[in-house]
């Protein structure tokens, strides 16, 4: 073929003519050679600019040996693995890789490790204020984790969390002052107080749903505030009730006191995280994940007693909140009225919404951010609250579910963009519409049609006067390359509506017919024109096919 390619004069020489082509063409004019592969290349290339959207190419994947996927560290004595690891083969390079399906434990470990060693690495100038804020962070993060259990896991939109903590703190402080209870009794008593309050508050939750309950608990919060601030027993004038027994000895050095405060807050945080893990990810949490909002009927039909589970989670977190209340009293020697104020509720909501409602990491990170703004950047004055408000506005305007929802939101957005880009570079490749393609049983047909289309596109470019003239002079025998391609295609066509020559009278009358393609059904006559010779009939048939090709 290479010699044909280099040919510049548009003449085709019959290679068989050397042996004497009896009655055949020796030399005919022919169109310039066209590469039949070109149309395939043209179809394959993307005409739309593509941007680099996709997985991180630079993300490190640890290597793996295919057989050793199962060989992992486990938490003794359980069969639980330390990290959820999966062995996969890279789709592009086909290398075996080990991927961590869930990287959150790694982040948790290093964050908590940082908190644990923070007192030793913080700069001396800020140590005191940062550690004090750290203790507060521990307490608030624990409260918010319990709140997340209520709002996220149980799906009860309660705003009375700080009311439970506050009531527990006030009652235990009062008991400690009047009965002289030691500090370690306070969280225990607090648990009982929390349980009692939890039962009272949980009663309407069985009947009300969603925001109706939220508004009611907002009112309950106000009720607690008014009750405490106006009662004489709780020290109406002094802005709070103080004087409970505490585990922080005033005779210690100030730094030791701060350290004890910090680490007790940290321990409370760890305990709350364990509680969250054991409620949210175990039986109760699993049950409640089957019964999200508006799908309760389905859960009930599946035999899940979700109401019971919800109330249980609510009571567990109320007990925990009561414990935190008692701890709060022992930590601060009492409590201020501020804990019941609307401002505290707003701050609490800011903490859990900034991170993302319903997630442990969201609750802790949101608390950290708000505590840093509120307690560390004190010199900003009232601008702190404006910053917090603006942060909340930013989060609700642009993020679906807080900072920790960014990942999912980004992925959804990226997938949407990918889909848009894909549809914009989609071409009408085959002859089938998408609906047709899905309904066709024989999927080869889709590809055959696509290939057929490309081939017809190519053959159309070959049709010209030269080859028609060539065919007219010699319908049979060796033809030029271009004509031969066209004829091969015509001969290979499907049997239905395939043109054939009918001999009416040998050497005198020929007609063109079309086959039915069905066994037993006779061919139909396509035209009445009578050809005198068989060659004329062949050429007439050829012209018909060419016409069909050019019109299709």
């Amino acid at each position, binding site marked *: 073929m290479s010699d044909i390619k280099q040919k510049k004069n548009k003449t085709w020489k019959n290679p068989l003519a050397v042996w004497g082509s009896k009655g055949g063409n020796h030399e005919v004019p022919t169109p310039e050679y066209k590469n039949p592969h070109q149309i395939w290349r043209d179809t394959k290339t993307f005409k739309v600019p593509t941007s680099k959207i996709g997985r991180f190419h630079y993300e490190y994947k640890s290597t793996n040996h295919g057989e050793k996927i199962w060989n992992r560290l486990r938490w003794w004595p359980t069969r639980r693995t330390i990290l959820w690891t999966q062995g996969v083969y890279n789709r592009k390079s086909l290398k075996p890789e080990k991927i961590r399906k869930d990287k959150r434990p790694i982040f948790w470990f290093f964050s908590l490790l940082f908190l644990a060693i923070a007192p030793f690495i913080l700069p001396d100038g800020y140590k005191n204020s940062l550690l004090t804020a750290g203790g507060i962070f521990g307490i608030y993060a624990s409260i918010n984790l319990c709140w997340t259990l209520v709002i996220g896991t149980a799906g009860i939109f309660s705003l009375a969390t700080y009311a439970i903590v506050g009531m527990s703190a006030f009652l235990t402080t009062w008991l400690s002052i009047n009965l002289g209870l030691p500090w370690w009794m306070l969280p225990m008593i607090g648990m009982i107080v929390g349980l009692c309050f939890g039962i009272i508050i949980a009663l309407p939750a069985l009947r*009300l749903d*969603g925001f109706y309950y939220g508004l*009611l608990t907002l009112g309950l919060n106000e009720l607690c505030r008014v009750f405490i601030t106006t009662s004489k027993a709780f020290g109406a004038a002094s802005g709070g009730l103080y004087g409970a027994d505490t585990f922080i000895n005033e005779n210690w050095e100030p730094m030791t006191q701060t350290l004890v405060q910090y680490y007790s807050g940290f321990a409370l945080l760890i305990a709350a995280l364990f509680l969250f893990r054991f409620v949210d990810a175990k039986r109760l949490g699993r049950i409640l994940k089957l019964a999200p909002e508006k799908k309760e009927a389905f859960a009930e039909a599946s035999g899940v007693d979700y109401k019971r589970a919800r109330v249980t989670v609510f009571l567990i977190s109320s007990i925990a909140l009561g414990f935190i209340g008692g701890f709060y009293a022992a930590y601060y020697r009492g409590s201020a009225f501020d804990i019941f104020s609307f401002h505290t509720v707003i701050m609490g909501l800011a903490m859990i919404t900034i991170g993302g409602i319903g997630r442990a990491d969201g609750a802790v990170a949101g608390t950290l951010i708000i505590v840093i703004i509120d307690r560390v950047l004190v010199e900003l004055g009232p601008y702190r609250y404006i910053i917090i408000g603006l942060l*909340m506005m930013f989060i*609700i305007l642009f993020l679906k579910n807080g900072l920790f929802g960014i990942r999912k939101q980004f992925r959804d957005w990226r997938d949407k963009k990918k889909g848009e880009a894909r549809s914009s570079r989609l071409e009408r490749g085959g002859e089938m519409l998408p609906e047709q393609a899905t309904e066709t049983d024989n999927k080869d047909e889709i590809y055959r049609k696509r290939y057929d289309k490309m081939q017809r596109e190519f053959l159309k470019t070959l049709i010209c006067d030269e080859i028609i003239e060539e065919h007219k002079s010699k319908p049979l025998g060796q033809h030029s390359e271009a004509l031969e391609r066209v004829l091969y295609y015509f001969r290979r066509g499907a049997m239905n509506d395939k043109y054939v020559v009918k001999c009416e009278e040998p050497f005198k009358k020929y007609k063109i017919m079309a086959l039915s393609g069905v066994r037993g059904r006779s061919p139909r006559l396509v035209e009445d024109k009578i050809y005198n010779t068989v060659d004329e009939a062949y050429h007439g048939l050829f012209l018909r096919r060419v016409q069909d090709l050019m019109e299709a």
Partner: protein
Amino acid sequence: MNDIIFIIINGITVASIYGLIAVAVSITWSALGLLNLSYGFIFSFAGYGAWLAERYLYGEPIFVMFMGIAAGIVGGVMVCLLVFIPVHDKPNFTIRGMIGTLAISLIGGQILLQNFGPKAKLLPEFFGYGKIKILDVTLTADKIGIICSSIVMLVIVVRWMKSSRRGLEIRAMMMNPHAASIVGIGVRKTGIYVMAVTGAMTGLSAVLLSQTYYLSPFSGLTPMIKGVSIALMGGLGSVRGAVIAAIILGFNEALTSKFLGGRYVLMTQFLLIIIVLIIRPRGIAGILDKAREA
């Protein structure tokens, strides 16, 4: 006998002020699906607007009152533009909208505190100091004025919603927001009307309450929480229910403070609300089966 009538009058006075906010909360929730917890801020904003007008422009009571209402409208439209319009078509709208209004009330309260200071401000008595005696009962002009003006406001709003084109749009949004948007009622435009009307109601309640008590950057919180409770008891989305609940809670407040003492007002009130809600989870006039799905 005198005492009883006095209590009833007191109850109606309180009810008419809180009822305005309750109706505002109710209309916003049912028409827009927005739980607006920034009425406390709109309340203070309107109060300060009235105070500034009285101080720097013109001291005529009627003018001050209208300036308060105007400031309430401005506050309401501001909340609509900042929270409702950007978020109303996004996922988790209800909770995001609620938190947005809370953020506005946080920012707005701090800005008011910065500009006006924590010191309480007083608005002038709009209705003078006159007294009328009817059947041995002395009615102060103050109380009559409060009751009359809030009833007038409520009647105007209800008439407007019943008879005007805009009111028809708002009622259509209340019934079915999706269908309303299909027949060509603009959600955003209606949102601005709704927030303007409810802002006006909050503004009126702000000027009425601030002339009896006082005005401070956070003085709107208690009325808002009371208004929300009343709306909750009456059934979110029902003006009639809110009015009934306001009257019931007003009587409760007056009776409790008379017989048990002011400390127990909120307790009896919430006991009442919880009892009502346990019997009828969607409030007195709320529809039982269907919550609004925003």
